[in-house]
């Protein structure tokens, strides 16, 4: 039987999808107080911390290059998403409160203007799921969660919407395409921003990726509970990447990146997934 025919082709300049955005609070991007440099607290996220520290350093570098001071509160651990998505709300609640305890005072005191994370799914957790998770918590906790939800941003979102960046000093001679991670695209409505920054990386355009907004199959714990389905979804993504001819696919979420590279490597593909931060940060070597 013929291979997956009839799949709709999508252009790289994909439509910005407004997700259930009507249900979710829109952020006011003009949060910085006048008169001083914007200061952000970096929420590096657990996977980046342990597995991809260079992504964290690239994020710091980008923020610094474009006019923001970065503080790194050491008490941070995780946003609680794996626990929440697994249905373990008591655990997720504890972790979320931990996040609020670490970042809350910094925001409330005005010491930082925003929290920035190089991960769409973690930001979506804070912005949308904390409200659900903490619906029964004490008013002070809920207020703090609401306050933080209003000023937590994904990296490219913060760079473009708040710092007004439209291109970085990063350069690449590789053929680049972009995979739109689900939470970033649909929960946060962020798509134009990473694409805009990626366009600046080289003279050639970012390559079209067929099914760019199709889920790669990671889905967090789904990748373990339903590893077989997850893998098939990832292989579909790998086929599209192969067909695109790209050397590198930029992604904004390291979970997706780990899953995609896991399959690309095991199945012998040439293309590799790289985090947008690493591509965009000024660098002497091109990422492999």
């Amino acid at each position, binding site marked *: 039987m013929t291979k997956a025919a009839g799949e709709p082709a999508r252009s790289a300049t994909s439509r910005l999808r407004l997700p259930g955005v009507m249900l979710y609070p829109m952020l006011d991007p003009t949060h910085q107080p006048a008169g001083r440099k914007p200061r952000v607290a970096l929420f590096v996220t657990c996977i980046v911390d342990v597995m991809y520290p260079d992504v964290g350093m690239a994020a710091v570098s980008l923020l610094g290059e474009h006019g923001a001071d970065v503080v790194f509160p050491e008490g941070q651990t995780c946003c609680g998403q794996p626990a929440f998505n697994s249905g373990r709300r008591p655990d*997720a609640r504890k972790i979320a409160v931990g996040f609020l305890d670490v970042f809350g005072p910094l925001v409330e005191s005005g010491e930082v203007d925003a929290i920035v994370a190089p991960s769409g799914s973690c930001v979506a957790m804070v912005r949308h799921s904390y409200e659900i998770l903490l619906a029964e918590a004490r008013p002070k906790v809920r207020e703090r969660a609401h306050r933080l939800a209003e000023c937590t941003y994904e990296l490219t979102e913060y760079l473009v919407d708040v710092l007004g960046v439209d291109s970085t000093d990063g350069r690449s001679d590789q053929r680049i395409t972009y995979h739109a991670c689900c939470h970033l695209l649909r929960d946060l409505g962020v798509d134009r921003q990473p694409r805009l920054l990626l366009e600046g990386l080289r003279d050639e355009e970012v390559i079209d990726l067929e099914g760019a907004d199709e889920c790669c199959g990671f889905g967090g*714990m789904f990748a373990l509970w339903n590893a077989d389905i997850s893998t098939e*979804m990832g292989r579909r993504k790998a086929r599209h990447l192969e067909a695109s001819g790209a050397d590198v696919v930029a992604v904004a979420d390291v979970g997706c990146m780990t899953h995609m590279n896991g399959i690309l490597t095991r199945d012998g593909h040439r293309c590799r997934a790289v985090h947008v931060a690493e591509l965009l940060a000024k660098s002497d070597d091109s990422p492999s």
Partner: protein
Amino acid sequence: MKVDVEAPYRTRIRQALEDTDVRSAVNRAMGQLAERRERAVGAIDNERMRVDARAAREGAIRQLPNLLEEVERTLTENGSVVHWARDAGEANRIVVEIARARGVQSAVKSKSMVTEEIHLNKALEAAGIDVVETDLGEYIIQLADEPPSHLVAPVIHKRAEDISELFQERLGMEPSLDAAVMCDTARQVLRQRFLTADMGISGCNFAIAETGTVCLITNEGNGRMVTSLPPVHVVIAGIEKVVATPEDALLLWQAASRNATGQDVSVYFSMSSGPRRAGHPDGPEEMHVILLDNGRTRVLESGYADALLCIRCGACLDVCPVYREIGGHAYGATPYSGPIGSILTPLMADDMGATKDLPFASSLCGSCRDACPVRIDLPRLLLELRSEIVAEGQTSMAESATVKGLTLPMLGPRRYRWATRVAQRFGRLLGAASGYLSWLPPPLSAWTRSRVFPRPAAKTFRELWRDK
């Protein structure tokens, strides 16, 4: 290897993924349906239609008892007999009783998921009544003795070759792969059944409370035949199908048409408001409407009324990256598959334990939520179900252990640092020079079966930051 819908979850998934023919058919069909849908909703102010459709459906569910009483009154005024069935058993008994009272020997049916839900055909056959499906897709799977695999396109998992073989074998059709020839064969056979059947059985897309009207969406015309030619017409309507006004029904018809098949409207929208009146040349002499609960009240009581908003358009299936890989039968012995099925099937089941895997069979990508014409937040409902299943202790030990292992370290900075050091040490022990791990111990081996895993970095971000 076909999927055995009665087999345990893991077996069904394995069977589904191994059946490359079905996967190919499903994949191609979903791509086309999703594309057609996109074009149809892209041509209008879809966000406004979704808000309107949501208001129509949510308004109806909020007023459900009042609207049910109203539709009972208006249907009765129009000359129909209204019955109430708490569960599948009661509904089937009522249909059989109606059939016996009228000496029914043969029945024709239009496509209805609710009749699959209650296994009506089996009950009728047990009572000696011959039932034939008249929707082409349903007719094909009836011949093949299989359950439907998609809400709207029940035979999407079959290729033309499969259908042709079936028709040659069972209907004596000449060999042909031409869809027109196959359709014509079915038309001839089923035309005879329409004209001679004693009873017509249909589902109900919408039941209009204000006017006592049962609405049916079809493209083939079998809906009109089933509701016009036999002398008795029986409608099985889930109680959630009620809407307040004809305006709501007409709106939801358009929303369903665009989202299900990419048409502006379906070819036929039959609005039946009772049996034939005096002097009418055709139409049933008797019309019965069975209002069916079968777990719907429980869904409402459980706080998942959002799931009752569903208008059965199938859009969530068409855009679901998981459904596209596994097809409908993998969801088990239920007519409701895909994202909405993963919610309704456990909620309506007597024993949620048997269906507990379904809410976890999702990567939570959110495509379904974006597509739903009545704005059901499907991922949210899946997450709620997951937390209930965990709270009831329904998850396996292995699953619990894995998640606990990955989440307990996050509870505080000290545990986190300790867990980090363990991971780094582990990585150094297992890792090759390549920097990748090709093996992880169970249960993490689920990852490395098909993917490499990167080694934890020599220094964490924290350590690099401190070194700066």
